[in-house]
């Protein structure tokens, strides 16, 4: 059960100013039925002084949504419109002695209804620019949309950086897996390195261990003349050279270390090294090599060189 303050409970059980308002000349409708919240704020504004004479609300929502609406009407009564525009969602939450972090959006909805109602009175159209995501960090009430925006704007790559920028993940650490997922999603969409065909159109990256990733050659291998060893080596080098600029654009790079039969050992360098998309990058390059050579090859990290020699 939610840990509601006495004030929230009181405003929920005995909401002030509930129901339609006769003579309302400013109405703000906000919310989203999808999220389970919708609020209509009705104000009666004195045209002379622009003072709010009365305020009523109708709310579809949970306990804290109804309490926030009730609090909002109490706060704005008697204010001028300009004063009312200064009311922040924190003020609504403070009026109720605080809201649980997951419920802060109820106070945000109250502030938005107020802005929408005032816009309605002034004959303007109010545009909602507020987007809300699922709560990721419960310690500091940070949602997924905020984290994603900050990650994108600042090219963040680690959980630690996200914590420094947003505080998310700086408390109990239980959301680190969720933050990592956002990081890998964002880096997947930004990464220009080749992707394996299976991932190229998939929105989410799915890490696949390269050793078992078998990409079927796009063309029938038998149709091509067999390459000599030298031709084959050149072909591999040419393919890798063509890919390098893409990796360099992402501040990464690749070098071929050894070619042993169907195993090609490479080093990923720079930003590609340790990147969350490392496996996908390797799979993508492997697919291109398979295509260019017309035979199945396996791209392996150079670190595995010793391992396979023992086999």
């Amino acid at each position, binding site marked *: 059960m939610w840990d509601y303050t006495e004030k929230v409970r009181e405003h929920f059980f005995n909401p002030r100013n509930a129901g339609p308002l006769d003579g309302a000349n400013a109405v703000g*409708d906000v919310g989203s039925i*999808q999220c*389970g919240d919708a609020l209509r704020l009705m104000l009666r504004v004195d045209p002379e002084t622009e003072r709010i004479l009365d305020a009523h609300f*109708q709310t579809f929502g949970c306990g*804290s949504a*109804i309490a926030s609406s009730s609090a909002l009407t109490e706060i704005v009564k008697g204010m001028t419109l300009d004063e009312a525009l200064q009311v922040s969602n924190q003020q609504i939450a403070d009026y109720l002695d605080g809201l649980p972090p997951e*419920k802060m959006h109820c106070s945000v909805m109250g502030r938005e209804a107020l802005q929408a109602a005032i816009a309605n009175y002034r004959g303007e159209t109010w*545009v909602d620019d507020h987007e809300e995501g699922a709560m990721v960090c419960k310690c500091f009430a940070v949602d997924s949309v905020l984290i994603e925006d900050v990650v994108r704007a600042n090219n963040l790559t680690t959980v630690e950086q996200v914590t420094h920028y947003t505080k998310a993940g700086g408390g109990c650490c239980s959301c680190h897996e969720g933050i990592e997922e956002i990081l890998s999603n964002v880096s997947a969409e930004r990464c220009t390195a080749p992707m394996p065909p299976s991932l190229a159109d998939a929105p989410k990256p799915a890490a696949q261990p390269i050793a078992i990733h078998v990409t079927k050659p796009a063309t029938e291998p038998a149709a091509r003349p067999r390459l000599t060893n030298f031709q084959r080596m050149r072909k591999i080098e040419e393919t890798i050279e063509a890919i390098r600029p893409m990796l360099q654009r992402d501040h990464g790079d690749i070098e071929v270390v050894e070619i042993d039969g169907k195993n090609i050992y490479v080093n990923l360098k720079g930003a590609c090294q340790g990147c969350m998309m490392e496996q996908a990058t390797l799979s993508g390059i492997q697919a291109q090599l398979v295509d260019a050579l017309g035979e199945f090859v396996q791209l392996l990290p150079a670190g595995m060189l010793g391992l396979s020699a023992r086999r």
Partner: protein
Amino acid sequence: MSPIYLDNNATTACDPAVVEAMLPYFTEQFGNASSMHSFGNKVAQGLKEARVAVQKLIGAEFDSEIIFTSCGTESDSTAILSALKAQPERNQIITTVVEHPAILALCEHLEKEGTVVHRLKVDKKGRLDIDEYKSLLSPRTAIVSVMWANNETGTLFPVEQMAAMARTVGAMFHTDAVQAVGKVPIDLKKSKIDMLSLSGHKLHAPKGIGVLYLRRNTRFRPLLRGGHQERGRRAGTENSASIVGLGKAAEQAMEYMEFENTEVKRLRDRLEAGILAQVPHAFVTGDPANRLPNTANIAFEYVEGEAILLLLNKQGIAASSGSACTSGSLEPSHVMRAMGIPYTAAHGTIRFSLSRYNTEEEIDRVIEAAPPIIAQLRKLSPYWNESGPTAAEQAFAPAYA
């Protein structure tokens, strides 16, 4: 005014007889069942009896097919991870969109690691399409995991038929039966079900005890290693007091099975009819003709579930809701969404789940209390106008986020 507990699908009260059976295991019977001395011996005897009681309740052929775990979630995870590990040549899971998060969240995680997960959809009444299921079964299917009864609506799935179909392609079949065990008769030896999860606290045993039924000759890999307990299939010293409690609860569940399906069902039907007769724009979700005898899930349109629960709670009535707000997530229950219940109704779903302890007086009190609460909240709702939903021309159309 004594409180009325109608949230038995969430958890149940421990039966007094169960508590009594457990008490000696906190005091004189404190021994470790594995020990060679008499302290351990008696505990081992208690575990054996409990195992047989659970075996009888679910109709298992052998008592060694019962593995005690810590909870339903552990049983679910053990079953699915074992099926994948024991059959490396198979990497697909078939499950449903309405499973408990214990299954869904695990599948989502496995998907990221490369496992292919198929999720069967449901229709408006929460029923599966068997033809769709048939088309997904293949030699690559490692395990099918389908719940016996849905926790939110009580809708029953044809798991016995589905298990037989899974067997034809050599796939394992697991069912999360935490809601069904004790409420519907189960006879596993006559089925092709390979694994079944149950949870003690859903049938008047304490929390922290679960069971994984594992059919003999089913390939298995343990989740926990480090001891010979449960024949090495679940290491860790046995939770002897809770196991004995579960044994007692299983015996009682057998005794009350008939009662569950007659008297409890009658009270459930009375509650449902009583509320629906007074509240317009309300309907039962799921498949009313084929569901658990104790569960009623009613959608009240144009009002929000958490607000209903808070007002019910003020009158001492405990139920639960599929609204987004009760969980802190942004979306309403995945089960309601899967059935295509509109948002205006999905947020207002209330689940009443009864037990054998509920009385007719209690049910009548709820029938009296609920309708005014809905009316009171609808008065506050911008979607509601005096006596009905707002007409289309003046409909509430907020600026959506």
